[in-house]
């Protein structure tokens, strides 16, 4: 039986929002929840600054996902692996 792949983008965004101090955390959770729904998105669209923030948050999660980032030329796993290899080879901390 195959196990579902973790959604690193969604997990990353949730961890990021959880790390925010209150009262921002509650505000960000609400924004993310609204932005994930078509009706919520339409509502946010009426206030440009809030819309940009909500849009940016969700997009941040989207492009944190390795597959989506890779399509834009960014391979985080390869960057991290190269770092680990260099540190081992050269005895870096």
């Amino acid at each position, binding site marked *: 039986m195959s196990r579902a792949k973790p959604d690193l983008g969604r997990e990353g965004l949730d961890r990021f929002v959880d790390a925010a101090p209150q009262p921002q955390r509650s505000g960000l959770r609400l924004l993310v929840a609204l932005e994930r729904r078509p009706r919520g998105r339409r509502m946010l669209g009426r206030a440009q600054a809030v819309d940009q923030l909500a849009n940016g948050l969700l997009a941040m999660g989207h492009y944190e996902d390795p597959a989506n980032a890779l399509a834009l030329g960014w391979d985080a796993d390869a960057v991290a692996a190269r770092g680990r290899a260099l*540190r081992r080879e050269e005895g870096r901390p």
Partner: protein
Amino acid sequence: MSRRREPRVIEADVCVIGAGAGGAVTAAELAEGGASVVVLEQGPRHDADRFSARPLDMLARLYRDGGQTTTLGTPPILLPLGRGLGGTTLVNSGTCFRTPPAVLERWQREFGLEALTDDALDPCFARVEAALSISEVTPELAGRNAAVARRGAEALGWSHGFLRRNARGCVGSGVCAFGCPTSAKQHVGITYVPRAEAAGAQVISGADVRHVLVERGVARGVEARLASGGRLEVRAPTVIVACGTIHTPLLLARSGLGRASGELGRNLALHPATGAFALMDEVVDMAKGVPQSFYVDEFASEGIMFEGVAGPPSYVAMSLPLSGTRHAAAMASYRNLAMFGLMVSDRSRGSVRALAGRPVIRYELVEEDVVRFRRGLRRMEELFRAAGAREVYLGLPGGVSPERAPARDLKLMAFHPLGTARADARAEHGVVDGDLQLHGAQGVYVADGSVVPSSLGVNPQLTIMALATRLAYGLLGRAVPRTHEEAHVLSD
């Protein structure tokens, strides 16, 4: 009936609170100079093996509040702060500038800091520069994002150059702000902290210092809570507070210290900054190379500095000043996007105080600084256009031109909080004196950005480290050696 457990007690010559730019440097220099040193760091030790090069993941792990500390005021400003061994040096861009001579002259004139001359600080700077392997970024390592800005600056005849950074063996991973995966960035967590430990210092992470203990005006030590449970008391005749500009005033205030002048927690300068993007014909791949590798200082005398900034797609997705289909279209062209930052040497001043144990940071951008942003944004657009940009996205809402941008429309971040326990030779105007000792409390010193009494106009980590070096040698009663080798001879 339960009895409160007695704290664990450690005795030392010096207790350093915080292992960032100021604390780690003083700890290493003092320990190597023969002092017994205990370092208490609130955050954890970070393992570079777990650095994932994914911004969201690393923001949550390496930053206080996930990098979402924000000021109250117009506009609100995001103020990301590092947390853990290395402090903010763990997550900064690594840019190193000496304190500009004009700033030192101002400190002498306005704050009575007469000993802080360019000549007197030269050995301190040289010592830090050697310890951190500071050198200029090469054009190859700077990458194509820097090449875009360079092309624009050259076309316009604007003064520019490659930045000096504390990096060794850098391969341009592009994620300095999210944990350097190659440990090329020589942050103090992998340079000064190991030196301190090798010289016998005890470095305790997860130690939240609650009070600095002072009796009859003389330092006695500190009390801390440990993340692992229990309490710790360090008895030491010298205490160096280095919790950073936001948290140092909070610790001093709850310890009943540093309040006589009324300046504690005030005079907060931030170097507010914003970014702009350009859509280029060429592939830029901005995250391939050193994100902050190039500067344009043509307008430094006006308090406006341009410095490189770049990041992986998820970082750019959050920073792009667009929404909806325009945002999606710009992201689809990520590989052709260039980005650059604009930083203002601020006249605005803010404050920090505690509310329910957390910092409340207030900061209102004054009109003079708003004008600097307006000018800076317009010039940023000129820079990108001169480099051949097809489109430029400034950090403003759609339809707002830089000339008409009110403060509330600016999308700002800040990376250099300074000044909340400012140094001033006169006790009635400052929190610490020219030797960084708290006015009115013998043996309590401050060694972080909070003592820096004015905006610098440049990145402050080298200034903080040089002042920390000077403090350490002052406490050892020795002149700062001119070279690293000379220092070892002295300590043998």
